[in-house]
Every structure is written in structure tokens, then in C-alpha cells.
């Protein structure tokens, strides 16, 4: 059975795994972006908090994803919930960091003009800082989402479903075709998502 025959004969399973994968990553990213943007904005008010949060997210990211997921099993069991929790934790760093630096690295002349004109700090945050930080935020969200897709595959190991299942099953059953299909699809999804979000980012930059 060659590669394409395999793809055609199994397409319903492959499609449902793909959709499952996208679903998990999508839910995780919605939560992650909400939390990350909120945290990123909040920590701009307090340097101490910013340093702590950035360090924690930094360390979170160095924890091997496989280990992070495994550690969640005793607490949350297996399945989609721990997978989503793990993904959210894991994708915080790029979002929080980019939101924070995006807001903090705005041309001082612009801020001085805004203050001098009589805008309140609240207003400056809403009408100047956040809109100007959008491209940086988007870049963080892009990195995080692409990471999420890849790590989502590893979540297949803790019973979250998705395309990772094909890879892990393929390895244990020594089915090269399963492994390759899973790996190729994940790669394609990652690349397409990256390109798409890159396009959005460029649009915001203009």
C-alpha cells in the first residue's frame, strides 16, 4: 500500500484527528491569548511583578512539554483538559513577553506628547500604548500558536487525541505510514498557520 492509497483509505480517521487537533489548540489559544494579554498588560504597572511573571513563564517554557503533561496527570487525569492546561501554561511566555515589551517600548516622544496634551494614563494605555503594541502582540500570538500546534501533538501522549495519536501509535505499531502522515500533517498545519498569522501581523504593521 503506498502513501496516497493509505491516505485515501484512512481519510475519515485522519480528518477527525486533524479537526480534534485544531480544536484543542484553538481552545487552548483562546484561553492563552486572553490570559496572556491580560497578564502582559497588568504587569506593565509594576516592575517587580513583571520581573517575577516573566521569569516564571520563562522557566515554564524550559520544562520539557512531555514532562509538563505527565506531571499534570496526577492532578487533572488524562485527556483534553490537562492537554489544554499544559498548552496554556506553555504558550504564555511569548504572549506575555511580547505584550509587555510592546507596551513598554513605545517611542518616549509619543508618550511625552500624549502626556503633555493632557491625556490621562488610562487613556494613553487604551488609545496609544495598546494600539501601538498590536503588531508586537500579534507576533507573540503567532509564535505561541505555532508552538501550540507542535506541542499539541505531544499531548496525544496523554490521551488528548489529535494528530499526535497517529505518530505515537505509528511508532508503537511500527507503521511508518502512520508516523509520516501525522508528522507531515502537523508540519503543514504549523507552516500554514505561521504564514497566515504572519500575514495578519504584516497587515497590523501598516
Amino acid at each position, binding site marked *: 500500500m503506498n502513501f496516497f492509497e493509505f491516505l485515501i483509505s484512512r481519510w475519515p480517521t485522519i480528518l477527525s484527528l486533524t479537526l480534534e487537533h485544531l480544536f484543542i489548540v484553538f481552545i487552548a489559544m483562546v484561553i492563552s491569548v486572553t490570559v496572556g494579554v491580560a497578564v502582559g498588560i497588568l504587569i506593565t504597572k509594576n516592575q517587580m511583578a513583571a520581573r517575577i511573571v516573566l521569569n516564571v513563564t520563562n522557566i515554564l517554557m524550559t520544562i520539557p512539554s512531555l514532562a509538563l503533561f505527565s506531571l499534570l496527570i496526577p492532578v487533572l487525569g488524562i485527556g483534553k483538559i490537562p492537554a489544554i492546561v499544559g498548552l496554556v501554561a506553555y504558550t504564555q511566555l511569548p504572549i506575555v513577553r511580547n505584550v509587555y515589551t510592546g507596551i513598554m517600548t513605545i*517611542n518616549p*516622544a509619543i508618550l511625552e*506628547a500624549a502626556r503633555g*496634551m*493632557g*491625556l490621562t494614563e488610562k487613556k494613553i494605555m487604551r488609545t496609544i500604548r495598546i494600539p501601538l503594541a498590536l503588531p508586537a502582540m500579534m507576533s507573540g500570538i503567532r509564535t505561541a500558536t505555532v508552538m501550540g500546534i507542535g506541542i499539541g501533538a505531544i499531548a496525544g501522549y496523554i490521551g488528548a487525541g489529535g494528530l499526535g495519536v497517529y505518530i505515537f501509535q505509528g511508532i508503537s505499531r511500527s507503521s511508518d505510514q502512520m508516523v509520516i502522515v501525522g508528522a507531515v500533517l502537523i508540519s503543514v498545519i504549523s507552516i500554514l498557520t505561521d504564514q497566515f498569522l504572519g500575514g495578519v501581523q504584516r497587515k497590523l504593521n501598516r
Partner: protein
Amino acid sequence: MIRFENVVKRYPGEATDAVHNLNLEIESGTICMLVGPSGCGKTTTMKMINKLIRPSSGAILIGGRNIDTVDTIELRLSIGYIIQDTGLFPHMTVGENIAVVPGELGWKKDRISSRIDELLDLVDLNPKAFRNKKPNELSGGQKQRVGVARALAGDPPIMLMDEPFGALDPITRARMQDEFLRIQEKIRKTIVFVTHDVEEAIKMGDTIAVLKLGQIVQLSSPMEILSNPSDPFVSELIGGRNSLKMLSLMRCGQIMKTLSPAEVEEARGSPQGILGMKATAQDALSEMLRTGERFIFVEDERHDVVGVLDFENLLERVNRHGITS
């Protein structure tokens, strides 16, 4: 009127005052130039007016009211602010930039919209063409025009200008200075203008405050500064050629001798140089050197000769102010 009363500013961790015991009165409707080398405290002085910097001691009064008793936001909304980098908001269009302060003041939409057109006209930018442009589509000079328009948007009685034309090329800078003076003739704002460029100070100012190490070393009119620099520091800052600079401050129309109709008739057809009333005495001198004559005629807007200006006249004008250096 803006008044500084014994204002001191010392930044934390510094051994000396950035601004030391400063007293200054700025008349309403005039341009006061703060001039001096970098680190002399001129920008600090200006930024204390809109509370971007708080004085360590002393008081600043605007129209007799201590600004400490005025709400910061309210105060700033009533003061136009222009800085060198323009600080235009890059994500907003020209129109939106100008609309910021009127929006904060709660103006109605159509009033804001007509204000934008009015201001763009004032700074000589076509409203239709520029309203919806983003700042990065503008040249340096155009950005600064928008900066001026934005600062004027809420019709503030006071404007603070921090080296507004410092980043422009010399030709654009000169043009912006001329145009700004033209605008000021119409709007008559109280303007505090910071610059390190003495030429600019002499050209733009009604009064000039020369600052050195946080203190005013001379406060007087441009003419007075040129003719009577109070100390070597000021003379050095002016950098010589004072008589020529003084001549550049006099308008032909102001110092000419008016001619009777008969004299005008006599003058008609003579080959001497002719200048407008608004030309400077420096232009007149240059014209005399060009033609090799000791006098020139002055004409009004309708190109009718109305007066004459001769070399002795210029000499007397300069001497009257008593060059000391």
C-alpha cells in the same frame, strides 16, 4: 501671563540644581524664547509649566493661579505642546491626531471636523489631501505643521514648543519659522519656545531668556541682547556679527523716511534698488552694496514707492543701540 516665582528644580541624586531660583514673567500674547546650551535647564523650565516636571520649590502661576491648585489634566488640555520629534501618534491619521484634544474636551463631532479643516488650512496643508494621511506618509516639515495644528486644536491660550524645528533642514526650518510667525500674528498665543539656536531665538522672540546652569543670565528683547549682551557668556552665545543681526530685526517700513508725493515723483524712474516694507534692514544694506548706491527706495504692497532708506540712516539705527562688543 505665566509667572515663575523662585522656582528651583533639583533632580534626585544630583549635586546642583537643574533650575536655580528662577524668576520669570511671560506676557500674554508674546513669544518668550528660552535659549542656552544643552543642560542649561531650559527644557526643564518649560516642562514645569505643564507639570511634566514638578519643581522642587517655588511656584508657577498662570493668569494669577498657582498651577499646583489646577488639575493636571485640565491644565495640560489648556496648553498646546509641540516637541522636536513631533510625537505624532503613528497609528492615527492626521485628522485623528488633531482631534485628540477636542475629543478630550468633549466637543461635538462636526465641530471637531470643521476645526480640523480650519487648522490644516491655517498651517497651509490642504485638508482634503492630508486629513486621512498617516504620519509616516508626511515629510519632516509637514509633520511639524501637523504638530502645530494638533497643539492648536483645543484653542489653548498657551503653547509650549520644545525645539520644534530642530530636526528640520535649514531651508524648511526657515520657512516654518516664517510661517509660524505669520500664524502667531493671527492667533496671539502666549508661547514659551525652547531652542539652542540663538539665531532662531532672535528671529522668533519678543523676549529672550538666556539660561546658563539653571539661571537666567539675561532677559530682554532680541535687540537689547544684541546691543547689550550682559556678560561674556551671552556675547559668546550670540557669536559676533551683532550689527548685521540687529539689522535683520528691523523692517524697512519701520525705519524708512516717508517721502512726499513730489519726492516720489522725482524718484520715479531712477535706477536705485526698491524693496518692500517687510524687507529687513539687512536686505536693504545688501541691496545698497549690490547697486553701489547709499540709499534704496521702499514700496508698499501696491508697488508704489512710499519712502527712502539711506546708509546714514542704518548707521544711526545701529549706533543708537550702542554696540558694545
